[in-house]
């Protein structure tokens, strides 16, 4: 599904290398987690995959089902099936959440040469999906993320994910700022989308999210590289001993 080879990325504005050769292969239906200390390059990986400005790719590649993502505009990546759940979802005043969703869904359908959803079909679908994430009608009407609590923002990201039905989901610190109940709700939303075909990359600082979204593979990232890869037990090791031991061990 997603194949990252020797990905090297610096900042556009200053001479600073952030990713120093990341390799990652995520197969169909797999759930991978990337853990790592602050500043290790976790979020940069997600931004570069989604196509955010401000980064310069100096080497390597990232393909989604064989297609080179790094040559595409952000919207083309989305249409190709990539979705990034933001760590800090952006507020768009005056634009109803529902309008935003519908515009996005139809933009992608159009880009893929599919029929647009009618207002009725769209409403039916969004209502059903919102319900399972405990998103009420009011939240659908309010402007995108404006005045949303931390939990509401993250649930809204998952609703977008559910509506857009991507092939490859990247979740950037989706657990940050959430209490346990909110985290459970978000994790249930994500688990509901696991269908054996859709793949996930869960980026997190803490192990606790991985109690709820069980990964197949866990990677540890440090200083711009994947330094260790293992099963779910690796996350527990981090939880118990911190990053220091692992880093010392691979150094």
């Amino acid at each position, binding site marked *: 599904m997603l194949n990252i080879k020797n990905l090297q990325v610096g900042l556009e504005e200053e001479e600073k290398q952030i990713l120093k050769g990341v390799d990652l292969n995520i197969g169909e239906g797999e759930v991978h987690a990337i853990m790592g200390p602050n500043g290790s390059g976790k979020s940069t990986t997600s931004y570069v995959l989604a196509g955010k400005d401000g980064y310069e790719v100096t080497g390597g590649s990232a393909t989604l089902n064989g297609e080179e993502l790094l040559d595409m505009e952000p919207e083309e990546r989305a249409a190709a099936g990539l979705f990034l759940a933001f760590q800090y979802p952006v507020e768009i005043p005056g634009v109803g959440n529902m309008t935003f969703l519908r515009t*996005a869904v139809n933009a992608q359908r159009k880009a893929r040469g599919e029929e647009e959803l009618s207002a009725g079909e769209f409403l039916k679908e969004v209502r059903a999906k919102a319900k399972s994430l405990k998103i009420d009608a009011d939240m659908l009407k309010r402007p995108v993320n404006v005045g949303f609590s931390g939990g509401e923002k993250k649930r809204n990201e998952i609703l977008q994910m559910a509506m857009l039905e991507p092939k490859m989901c990247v979740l950037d610190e989706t657990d940050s700022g959430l209490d346990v109940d909110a985290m459970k709700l978000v994790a249930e939303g994500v688990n509901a989308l696991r269908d054996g075909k859709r793949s996930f990359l869960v980026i997190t600082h803490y192990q606790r999210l991985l109690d709820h979204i069980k990964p197949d593979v866990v990677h540890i990232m440090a200083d711009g590289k994947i330094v260790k890869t293992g099963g779910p037990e690796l996350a527990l090791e981090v939880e118990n001993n911190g990053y220091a031991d692992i880093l010392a061990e691979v150094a």
Partner: protein
Amino acid sequence: MTDMIAKDGVEEETVEAVKSLSGEYKYGFSTDVEMEYAPLGLTEDIVRLISEKNEEPEWMLEWRLQAFERWKQMEEPDWAMVDYPKIDFQDIYYYARPASMAEEKPKSLDDVDPKLLETYAKLGIPLKEQALLAGVEAPEGERKVAVDAVFDSVSVGTTFQDELKKAGVIFMSISEALKEHPDLVKKYIGTVVPQSDNFYATLNSAVFSDGSFVYIPEGVKCPMELSTYFRINAENTGQFERTLIIAEKGSYVSYLEGCTAPQRDVAQLHAAVVELVIQEDAEIKYSTVQNWFPGDAEGKGGIYNFVTKRADCRGDRAKVMWTQVETGSAVTWKYPSCILRGDDSQGEFYSIAIANNFQQADTGTKMIHLGKNTKSRIVSKGISAGKAQNTYRGLVSMHPKAANARNYTQCDSLLIGDKCGAHTVPYIEVKNNTARVEHEATTSKVDDDQLFYCRSRGMDEEEAVALVVNGFCKEVLQALPMEFAMEAQALVAISLEGSVG
């Protein structure tokens, strides 16, 4: 259910409209019809000629000549934050009409030159009675809009005349009104915007050639939306239209105004006057979607739009609402105003002004509170892109007798790119201590993070800008009648194409 979608502000139609249009000024074509011009320049003879062409009563000619005499003594105002080459008022044609309209005016729309009708069809304006405005399907079945179409200096036809007549509503071109209802015109013309009001209004008083006239009798709720479409076609020609709307006691009317012009290298002048008279308990909603040619991307050509619009709330509890979406014109100089004379009268002003490339807009409103408990509300959204300059200029004046008068002003500016400017110039005069004035102003930029967020969900850059800007304008778009709101959203999107990146 569908209600929820309609209220969301930005519809998918916006996005479709953006996609389907090339991004060029789509109204920029010109119509090849034989035109009849008055001689170039402005003299007393031209004023007489215009009056004669319209077969006006003697008093009208006198009034025009009086205005012309005054105008000669006046100087062009220079206080607005706009910069344009000096206009040579002797290098403009003050009257142009399609030759087919010359001798015998067509008796019905069926007699109108098909080329003219084609022009309006191309613009998406339904002159045929069953058609609906701008090709947008009305949500509640058969919603009707009566249209008066003004082509250069003359009105080419007004629809739904008979149906309006049954309701007692008079809706016709002002030149016709001068023939059929001269007393009404005489009674009200110049009473809201006096002949000597300002340089452009005085010029208009001398040379106005046509425009719309609306009279709503006491207690009548106008059975349909009324609208006028102004089209400048002839080259080098000024358009000077005059609109007069009178709403008698307890009456109601919603009036829409749309404007377009062909794409030409040389700037053209448009100086209109609009007067609204609102009696006790009456209400007028006046909406404008102005899309005159803004000049090309290098700043060549375009319309100079110098307009005086004023509403006089003469009776108690009279209400007026101005809503404007100004996306066109090279230079805009326009301040639709409300004189709140009657006690408890209300004035509202909702405005979206977009300036892209080299456009300049200096626009706002004046709220003159004279009566007790008068209320006004101003919501202005200015959007600047490219190298454009956008100024909000507004006056709120609370007179000594305007006890408990209230004003709320909200003035937001949005910048796209780093070569444009937004300016806010509020004037506030309060002469009594029970009045309350609130003013809020913000300036923001279209945020890269917002655009990236939208794009990462699959929208392309222009869809993303359109979405964010339409969100910014939401409060004003909501104030427009449904049919116009759609058109306005599409316009917002189109006029900002190419502004990012």
